[in-house]
């Protein structure tokens, strides 16, 4: 990994940081959350692939790098299956859109 790559990656990270902070102040409702999470994922991928050299790693290492995040997504998805539907618990099912 060359110094040039590293500092270009650093530059990209700084730009993304500025973008995410600025975007957070725009009144976009829930879209703000998804924008900031999208930028966070991009930043994390930059760090993973360039600084942590996943670019040059074999498939096995990449699978293990992804596994933790994948299992975290499972946890968030299935817990939110509960939380997103909690409030309408006692609304009759056929009336729920």
């Amino acid at each position, binding site marked *: 990994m060359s110094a040039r790559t590293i500092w270009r990656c650093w530059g990209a990270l700084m730009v993304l940081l500025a973008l995410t902070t600025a975007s957070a102040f725009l009144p976009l409702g829930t879209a703000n959350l998804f924008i900031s999470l999208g930028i966070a994922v991009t930043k994390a991928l930059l760090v993973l692939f360039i600084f942590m050299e996943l670019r040059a790693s074999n498939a096995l290492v990449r699978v293990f790098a992804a596994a933790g995040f994948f299992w975290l997504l499972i946890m968030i998805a299935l817990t939110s299956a509960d939380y997103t539907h909690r409030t*309408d618990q*006692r609304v*009759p099912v056929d009336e729920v859109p």
Partner: protein
Amino acid sequence: MQGFPIWPARAGAYAGTLDFLYICLLVLAFLTAGLVIFLLIFFAAKYRHGSNAMRGGPSVKTWRWEVGWTTASLLIFFGLAVWGASIYLKLYNPPPNALQIFVVGKQWMWKAQHPGGQREINELHVPAGQDVRLVLASQDVIHSFYVPALRIKQDAVPGRYETMWFRADKVGRYHLFCAEYCGTDHAHMGGWLTVMRPRDYGDWLRAAGGQQTLAAQGEQLFRRYGCSGCHEPGGTVRAPQLEGVFGSPVPLSDGSVVIADERYIRDSILNPKAQVAAGYQPVMPTFDGQISEDDLAKLVAYIESIGPNSGRGAR
């Protein structure tokens, strides 16, 4: 010791529905386990070391068997999942116009309050042949309201209302348990569910002294806690009028809409700033820690009594 009981009492038609599913599962389980155990024993005997059984016949294609039993298990399991879910959905949706009873769990007793204001502890009297809806709360830890004869159970979680409903058909006395471990006297937290003929239930209600209905007691509390100062016409602060609100949709200040059910009313008393009705300021103080679960139940009953079905709140 009293013999070898196998089946719990059936206090209602639902118990029969569930027992039928259970029996079908039992048959399936006995057939499957029987097949596996029979094959184990059969193979063990036939192909024991030193037996003269024929071996090494034409080899069976493995994958055919694998695909066969995988598909069979999948189909049967999905059928069971759908069957179970369809019964559960009925269990989940209380019928309208059910008799509503508040039940509060606390270490280590169940306290019930009937709509007429009658209270009882570790006993629950209900009329036969009538839908009953329980609103469960807990004052301390998680409890679980369990009547095996009805085949129903629901945790009472502190901080929120849970509901369950049932319809008992058979007059009798049935065990009532706490099924979620709750501390020292967990095993003693329970008593009896008494299912009575409707007329007897009426007699019992009178004898138990319904001094005042739950809603009437709630109306007094509504004044004592000062709710009426804002929530009645001519109040000092602009606050939503509560007549006709119960059971109807309430638009909130964040744009969403909730149904004003028991849980919403309760949450609004304890944590008024969480779900503010659209068009109002979040000025109501919290009553968290100042109102007992018993009193909350009365307030909710009062607000329900001035709901759209009461006649008073009809618009």
